[in-house]
């Protein structure tokens, strides 16, 4: 056997021995360029899916995603438009149909 390529992609990249993430793994998504780290979403979260970032002013951390109740209270509380969105897991996305054209789409 002879190695045809000898160069490793991304040599600095560390690979961690992570366990599987629980499913759904990301019920809410934070746009870190917009988030001010005010923690209003953390405070309102019904089930402590979100916790404060140990570093003050940084975006909260989604720690217990599988416990999300999907009511979006966190989004309602966020003062920065577009910083926080709630997403239903893929298997729950519902289809709809344009009555005139019959075109079917998914939310």
């Amino acid at each position: 056997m002879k190695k045809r390529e000898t160069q490793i992609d991304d040599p600095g990249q560390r690979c961690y021995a992570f366990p599987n993430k629980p499913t759904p793994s990301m019920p809410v998504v934070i746009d870190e360029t917009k988030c001010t780290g005010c923690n209003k979403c953390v405070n309102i979260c019904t089930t402590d899916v979100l916790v404060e970032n140990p570093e003050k002013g940084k975006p909260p951390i989604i720690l217990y995603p599988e416990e999300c109740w999907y009511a979006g209270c966190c989004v309602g509380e966020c003062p920065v438009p577009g910083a926080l969105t709630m997403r239903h897991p893929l298997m729950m996305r519902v289809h709809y149909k344009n009555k005139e054209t019959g075109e079917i789409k998914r939310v």
Partner: protein
Amino acid sequence: MNWEDVVRESGKPMEWPYPVRYGVVNDVDVDVVVLGGGPGGCMAAISAAKKGCTVALLDKAYPKRSGGGSGFDHWLNTPNPASSITPEDCVEWEAVTYKGYSNSLSRYIAAREAYDTLIEIEKMGAKIRDLEDEFKGAPFRDEKTKFLFCYDYENRFQFRVWGATFKPAMFNECLRLGVKVFDRVVATSLLTEGGRQGARVVGATGINMRTGELYVFRAKATINAMSCHQTSWRFSTESIGLDMFKPNITGDGPAIMWRAGVELAQMERSRAAVPPGYEYPSYGTGNWWNTWHPATMVDANGKEVPYVDAKGNTVPVEERCKPKPGQKFIAERSRDPRYSKPAMPSDLAERIRKGEFVLPLYADLTSMPWYERKAIWGIMVGNEGRTKIPVLVNYEAAGFNSARDMLQNYFTVSGEPYPSMDATLALGPYRMEAFGNGGEVVVDWDLRTNLEGLYAVGDAILAGNYYYHACATGRYAGRKAAEYAAKLSGAPLIDGAQVENEKARVYAPTKRRPGKDWIDWKELRFAGARAMQNYCGGLRNEGLMKTGLKWVRDIKEEHYPEAYASNPHILLRVLETYNILTVDEVILQACMARKASSEVLGHFRQDYPEIDPPEWRKWVTIKQAGGETKIGELPLDFHGDLAGNYEAHNPDYKGYLKKKRS
């Protein structure tokens, strides 16, 4: 950012972000402590504070949105100036529908004071009227009061409201009145006089689910507002929140009551449910019940699936919220022909199988009158607890337009997945306990339990259900608890040994290290759910349930003591698991005590197949005394003369109905 990103960024595992203070004890002294800050708990706190009491309110989450706090869309059973419906009517339809298994006592109290409660919450800032005249001319609008109604446009006692505005308003009122709010403090036990089971209640303990600190509340009166139990049968390790009908309801209430010797009833009641993990977004699919009633349904080819009345006649869109001749009124939840709303044909599955309607079905709001479309998609979807952002905002952002598009329904004829109208599910292993009118605490005309000093509100009450009921009974119990507290001279005595025992119990999971079997809370809950599915499912008998009880006790006594909590959040989940297993034990014992089958209670026994025999028309009660299970019974009409008893207990109460009567 999730914890993987944190690790990737910092190169280290993430430390718990809050200070951990296991063992620290905080003493809180108040007149009234309210356990649970849902709508019931908030109203109880408000009314006790208005009576001059010092009040502590605790909740697992932040009470601005906790419990039924994200919203609701219909406020039921409320006699009001636009209606001729009486409190007796409100009680009657439920008693008829549930064949006597509805708690007419708390329902009557709620109907008597529901209008006053609603107006009081409006004054706190909730929106209950169409002040902008958005629905001017709609047949469900009362032009004078600007109230909007649902389900029965003629009898007008079921309100459409902007329910997402309620909880923030009530919470602000709590703060304004100086209620001491302990958010993320979780009640773990009741404290009783001398530490004795069944004695007067003198307060409660709690732990903070972020810091792990212990709280000892000493109070003259204690109010259980922790709602009901759920998730005994349905658990999947990964879609935990998705599968919960109500957030944070894990049987803490009934388990804490049970340990203290409080009398519960109807714990054997449950109903068929879908397997965990099969959920679609609540009220986020096209359908024809509750929030979406009376949405027009069509099949894949655009052919309308008719709404039919109890006699099978087709009901056109303009008639769907009007009682038929011979019907007194329409009540939202009733399937009794006297009060039922028109619905999809009962043989729909059969007709689909034969090809009359082609799957999938859709809800077609586009063809409905503007006011129906706007009410369903906008008020109802938009205020119902999990619809404002998840459905209304998100679906529109994804391109859905209710005036142009039809939303798919996920009806299938096989029985799976959700939502199925197929009867095959009824005998399946997956059950659901708390979806309205479940078991819970027996109360008297003061909404007091069998223990002195302890009151119950909302869904924590036997057969409790609904938002109006939670708010009205909360307001009432707060008043009664305050009156009781005012009669006591000094603060009650706390039993030190009882606190020490509870402290040891609560912190035990933090002191262990992962045990020999490496069992964690999820595995315990999975096992508990399996035991309930296999031994207390759709079809039961004595031998099955005995095995089930043995298995649940094995899990609780042999394996629970292995469960380890690595931080305060996980500690809470471990403690909740103990409560769920405790509730399972109560359910199994109640099911064994009811030696009869019952349609209403969803309790089907192979060894007692006769359905609802007359001698079993009663509630089975269950409590502990001296650590032993005591089974008792309670007549279905234990409330006695409704109006007479209410008047006798509330001679000085002045409200809308009293003024109307005099």
